[in-house]
């Protein structure tokens, strides 16, 4: 049991009120922490607007508990995990707790966003405190009703009991009385060892709806009088609309209208979420999707150059040049790498690269909008509703109070739905049509109007002394629109001479966050290089890494506070995967084995991967995965996230690439853009979590990045070749 305060200074973490019709509502702060002194000081230092009551817990007089969740569900399963946290502290049956997707309401919820694997990490303390506070207030209400001491009242599965008098009552019976009480200044939160729901396997609360095909997604939205809208956007980055023969498609069956539309009028206020916006395009509106698709195909439009029409060959050349010649100041510089290389017994140098990637959520971008002069109603899959509201207020010239945004379940996010330009397009088309419309992107629209994972190149150089100790590490990274390198991540702090340089190449191809941004490439490159360096040092790859972590633990280079990783936890996952994979015994006969470890989203992952190479493709037999993400809320779905990240990481590193010719994406559907398929997935994945009682950290992303390194290292053992260029087994990337 831990006593925590419910307020600090004039700021209260919890507010209570009565629920109309009976029951109680507790408002709590989704993002704030009240558990330790440092966190409280940080809370006090927060700007007021960051410190708001932004989550709600309702206990009805029937005992049902509802969490109003500000965070959308994109497949990361927070809709199951969040109620588990509340149910545990509240001490009610977790099946009696449900999550309701809250509409966008910037007056109540702040920073509504799904991204960065942060939902559980940030919601953890708020959800626990709300559950614990409600439990305490219910006990107090029962104590008053029964004339006994609150301390004598126990709880279990949503019931209050007083053993001496034999009295008991359900939470619902006491909820209204509890709502009238003052919020206690201090409440008891459980010790992690006493959790009874957190840490147990619980199935997806929407599972039944999913497997029976119920309408859950944005694309499933249907309203009376709703029209279908499609867009025709410029075929290349760096082009804009010149003219379009909309008249000839207007007469096609089922087509109501076709028109060029300026989605972002001059002077419109853009948010970062509008980064990939195309200002003008052609809209086609009709009665059915198929009819709109036919008109879209038939539309004759002319486009003209408006910027550089870039090709993959240009990106490759420019990034190479940047690595060779760029002279920016280092982001971090410990010791002197040049002097160390000069005296090193061995120097290893390698360059790694990766192409652009499309997000390819299985549900293409879409949004419902109904804009009238009085109000704007929007409904669909979006990761950043708050930013969308700001943009809409600007482009529709409408006050925010008149804009309602509702979120649907999303058929995948992976970062793509952070950039909600499709919702803005839907709103502008609806406004023009004065009708409710559902904008639907075809797969080709989705893949060719993306906000892609940037294209990257990174060069590593390492120096070893005569005993095989790492004495110097130099990393230079470059990416399109993205400077790639995390200068304070491993092995920073573990090498005397360390230098990190990073460069961004501005391009006209729009880029953005893609599952585990930057880490999704850098981890694989770094861990493949580490393998190469360990081999040059004549050392076991795990021993070699552990020696570096020992160094970072016992006498770190530079200010250890600057390093954004904990070397003990890092070493911990490596040791765990070494044990579980029986590393010393090696892979099963005929198979080859690689290892990698990485830290991102505040979590640590190490993997050992066993494969054979058959018919010029890797066949991954097994992946052993050790994860330290602190307390695991729901192991069943946590393992699903880990497995998914591993499949995703292997798939993209092996097969996927988006290339450009004269600004045009050369792959626009799954016939040319390869995604990993069932037969190519690992035959088996074993996941092990470190049990350390530390507060939970991210899990939606961290298993993806390192597996690319484990794969490359296993491929090297199988083939004798180092794999420097992603995709390792994709169609040959088009150069020139």
């Amino acid at each position, binding site marked *: 049991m831990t006593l925590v305060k419910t307020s600090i200074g004039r700021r209260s973490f919890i507010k209570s009120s009565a629920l109309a019709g009976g029951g109680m509502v507790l408002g709590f702060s989704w993002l704030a922490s009240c558990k330790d002194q440092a966190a409280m000081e940080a809370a006090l230092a927060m700007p007021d607007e960051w410190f708001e009551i932004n989550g709600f817990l309702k206990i009805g007089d029937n005992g049902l508990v509802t969490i109003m969740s500000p965070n959308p569900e994109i497949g990361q399963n927070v809709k199951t995990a969040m109620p588990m946290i509340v149910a545990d502290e509240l001490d009610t049956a977790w099946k009696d707790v449900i999550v309701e997707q809250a509409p966008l309401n910037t007056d109540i919820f702040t920073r509504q966003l799904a991204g960065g694997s942060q939902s559980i990490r940030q919601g953890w303390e708020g959800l626990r405190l709300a559950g614990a506070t409600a439990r305490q207030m219910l006990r107090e209400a029962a104590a008053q009703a029964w004339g006994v001491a609150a301390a004598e009242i126990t709880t279990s599965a949503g019931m209050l009991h007083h053993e001496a008098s034999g009295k008991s009552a359900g939470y619902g019976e006491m909820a209204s009385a509890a709502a009238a009480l003052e919020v206690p200044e201090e409440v008891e939160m459980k010790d992690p060892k006493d959790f009874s729901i957190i840490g147990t396997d619980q199935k997806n609360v929407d599972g039944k709806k999913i497997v029976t095909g119920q309408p859950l997604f944005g694309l499933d939205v249907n309203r009376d009088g709703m029209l279908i809208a499609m867009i025709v956007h410029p075929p290349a980055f760096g082009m804009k609309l010149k003219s379009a023969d909309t008249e000839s498609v207007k007469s096609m069956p089922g087509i109501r209208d076709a028109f060029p539309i300026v989605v972002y009028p001059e002077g419109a206020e853009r948010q970062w979420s509008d980064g990939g916006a195309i200002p003008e395009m052609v809209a086609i509106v009709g009665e059915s999707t198929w009819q709109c698709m036919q008109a879209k195909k038939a539309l004759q439009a002319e486009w003209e150059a408006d910027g550089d029409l870039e090709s993959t060959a240009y990106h490759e050349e420019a990034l190479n040049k940047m690595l060779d010649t760029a002279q920016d100041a280092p982001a971090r510089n410990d010791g002197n790498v040049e002097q160390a290389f000069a005296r090193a017994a061995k120097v290893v140098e390698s360059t790694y690269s990766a192409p652009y990637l499309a997000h390819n959520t*299985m549900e293409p971008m879409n949004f419902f909008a109904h804009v009238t002069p009085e109000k704007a109603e929007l409904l669909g899959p979006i990761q950043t509703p708050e930013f969308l509201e700001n943009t809409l207020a600007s482009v529709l010239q409408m006050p925010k109070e008149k804009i309602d945004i509702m979120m649907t379940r999303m058929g995948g996010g992976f970062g793509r739905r952070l950039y909600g330009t499709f919702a803005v397009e839907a709103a502008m088309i609806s406004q023009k049509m004065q009708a409710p419309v559902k904008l639907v992107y075809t797969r080709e629209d989705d893949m060719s109007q993306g906000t892609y994972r940037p294209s990257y190149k990174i060069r590593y150089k390492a120096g070893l002394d005569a005993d095989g100790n790492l004495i110097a590490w130099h990393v230079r990274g470059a990416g399109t629109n993205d400077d790639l390198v995390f200068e304070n991540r491993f092995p920073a702090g573990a090498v005397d001479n360390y230098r990190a340089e990073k460069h961004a190449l501005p391009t006209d191809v729009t880029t953005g966050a893609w599952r585990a941004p930057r880490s999704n490439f850098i981890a694989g490159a770094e861990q493949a290089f580490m393998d190469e360096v360990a081999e040059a040092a004549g050392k076991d790859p795990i021993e070699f890494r552990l020696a570096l972590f020992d160094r970072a633990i016992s006498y770190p280079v530079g200010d250890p506070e600057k390093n954004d990783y904990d070397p003990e936890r890092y070493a911990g996952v490596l040791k765990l995967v070494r044990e579980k994979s029986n590393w010393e015994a090696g892979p099963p006969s005929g198979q080859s084995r690689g290892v990698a470890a990485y830290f991102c989203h505040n979590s640590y992952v190490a993997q050992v991967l066993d494969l054979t190479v058959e018919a010029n493709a890797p066949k991954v037999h097994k992946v052993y995965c050790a994860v330290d993400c602190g307390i695991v809320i729901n192991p069943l779905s946590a393992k699903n996230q880990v497995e998914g990240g591993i499949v995703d990481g292997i798939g993209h590193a092996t097969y996927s690439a988006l290339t450009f010719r004269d600004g045009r994406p050369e792959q626009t559907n799954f016939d040319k853009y390869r995604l990993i*398929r069932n*037969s190519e997935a690992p035959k088996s994945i074993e996941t092990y979590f470190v049990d350390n009682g530390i507060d939970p950290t991210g899990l939606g992303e961290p298993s993806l990045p390192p597996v690319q390194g484990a794969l490359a290292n296993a491929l090297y053992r199988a083939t004798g070749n180092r794999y420097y260029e992603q995709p390792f087994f994709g169609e040959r990337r088009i150069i020139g």
Partner: protein
Amino acid sequence: MAVYNLKINGTRMEVDVDPSTPLLWVLRDHLKLVGTKYGCGIAQCGACTVHLGDTAMRSCSLPVSSVGNQEVTTIEGLSENGDHPVQKAWLEVDVPQCGYCQAGQIMSAAALLKSNPSPSDADIESAMNGNICRCGTYVRIKKAIKMAAEEQAS
């Protein structure tokens, strides 16, 4: 436009559409059966999988004019109460993440088990290779299909 009298999930349904309209959009737009999903439109991702008779078909590339009198089964009609062995196994294994592709996965798996009640790993991979899952739930899909096969056998 032409009138088609289709047999869908055991019920006769009439639509008046252009003969080239893919069954997918007839289901989704005209009959409001939205469990069958759009993913690619070119029979590459399997999100739109339905049964035509006992065979798994990509409805995005099947013109309504070629359906004829064949029985169409969609995810909504796979079982009355969501208790087809494949659906039960999907829940037991907790397969879905985002869930969008899963109707198509389930329809492919159900068709596989109808023609091959005890598929090998290779049979499963071959039958399921046309269904992309971007969340990467393939390992669980395979496990769930084996579980469903076992339940059907017992």
